């Protein structure tokens, strides 16, 4: 059989930018990581000393002094954290057992931003004012993206920082 490449025009009619997906709300993430458990909000604000100590120990920058933490009945913690990559913003939840070991991790939402790269104003206008809670609809949500890989390194770094935060701040508030 004769084989060759065929040149096709790209179907750009539905092109869009600023991909965003919401996977779980805080309540859903709690139920996914600690099914059936009672959780009590126990947010803390890091002191300047704690902030500095966490940065020093983890080697990661601490962007916020507010730690969104919940205490799990019978021991353990549920923490919501955010990481920022070059083009992505990811909120995730992490579950720790009474000894501080990770019992679960769920991505809560994922947002991509590519400010300035995109010049085509027409479809860009459709994105204006959209947030992660009102995802873009063009022929329905974009369900599948096949593309090169965004590394999960930022999340790995984030988890490291959360574990140090537990060690230096949460554990002692127990």
């Amino acid at each position, binding site marked *: 059989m004769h*084989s*060759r*490449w065929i040149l096709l025009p790209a179907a750009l009619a539905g092109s869009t*930018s600023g991909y965003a997906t919401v996977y779980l709300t805080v309540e859903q993430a709690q139920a996914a990581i600690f099914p059936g458990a009672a959780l009590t909000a126990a947010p803390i604000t890091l002191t300047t000393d704690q902030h500095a100590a966490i940065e020093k120990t983890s080697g990661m920058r601490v962007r916020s002094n507010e730690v969104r933490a919940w205490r799990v009945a019978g021991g353990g913690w549920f923490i919501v954290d955010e990481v920022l990559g070059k083009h992505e913003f990811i909120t995730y939840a992490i579950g720790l057992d009474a000894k501080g070991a990770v019992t679960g991790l769920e991505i809560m939402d994922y947002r991509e931003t590519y400010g300035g790269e995109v010049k*085509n104003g027409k479809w860009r206008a459709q994105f204006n004012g959209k947030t992660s809670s009102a995802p873009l609809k063009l022929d329905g949500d974009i369900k599948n*993206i096949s593309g*090169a890989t*965004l*590394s999960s390194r930022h999340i790995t770094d984030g988890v490291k920082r959360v574990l140090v935060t537990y060690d230096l701040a949460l554990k002692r508030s127990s």
Partner: protein
Amino acid sequence: MRSKDLPEIRRARPLLGTLVEVRATAATLATAEKAVRAAFAAIERVHGLMSFHDAKSDVGRLNRSGAKRSVRVHAWTHCVLRRAIKLHADTEGLFDIAVGPALVRGGWLPRQTKLPRTRGTAADIILSKGRRVRFHRPLLIDLGGIAKGFAVDQAITALRRNGATSGGVNAGGDLRVFGAQPELVHVRLPESPGTLVPLMSVQDAALATSAHYFAQRKVRGTLRTPIHHPLRREFSAQKFSVSVQASECWLADALCKIVWLAGAAALPLLQHYGARARILEARVGQGHGENHFYAA
């Protein structure tokens, strides 16, 4: 009942060095949740078996001891190795999982053990009964070009076995879907990866994409991708995206790298495996109206 009326679960976790998304639709929410849990467990298992970075994984043990003695591996690892060796033969050496030393030298993989002195290939891997594997000579294998797709396939099997009626698994762009409805897949424009364009509809099939964006880094002054040409002994510097649709994701994943390196020369192989490829070229300059796909 249409599947869109059934409860759907959609979760994402960091695995395989990327974000893995699993979707499942099932008769009940509890079934969908169980199916998604089973799918993630399958991916974690593949991760644990085939990670280059983990010294205790099958790949880690093989790289350390494979040339000294035969190593017993998991059936899944044995299966991936068998397929990789076949593709190595099919492509006359172009698809080579023994590319580890080059990836380490290029900085894409960490240097853990001494690099082999001789230059071996996938043809130096001997598989025998009892899931035993032995290397003819010291090798550093990396399953990065095939294991992610294999993990997606295992997760799809887990979704089906656990009662999902439709669903999909997307491991950082290598994806597979199943169910009664065809699903549209978007790809990123090579010159502007934030822009998503519809590529094709897939149903009960896999689609993998390789592209330079996010992956490239400087090697001796030139931006390169981690896709290594074992015969030319260099990392590709091409700026385009290659997508391959195939029945299973391990195949789509591996064929992507082959099309990337071989271009039109890969067409007979694509036909042999019943696969389709699309290349989206990066365009220099503004405006996206003139991009085009090369399709086979």
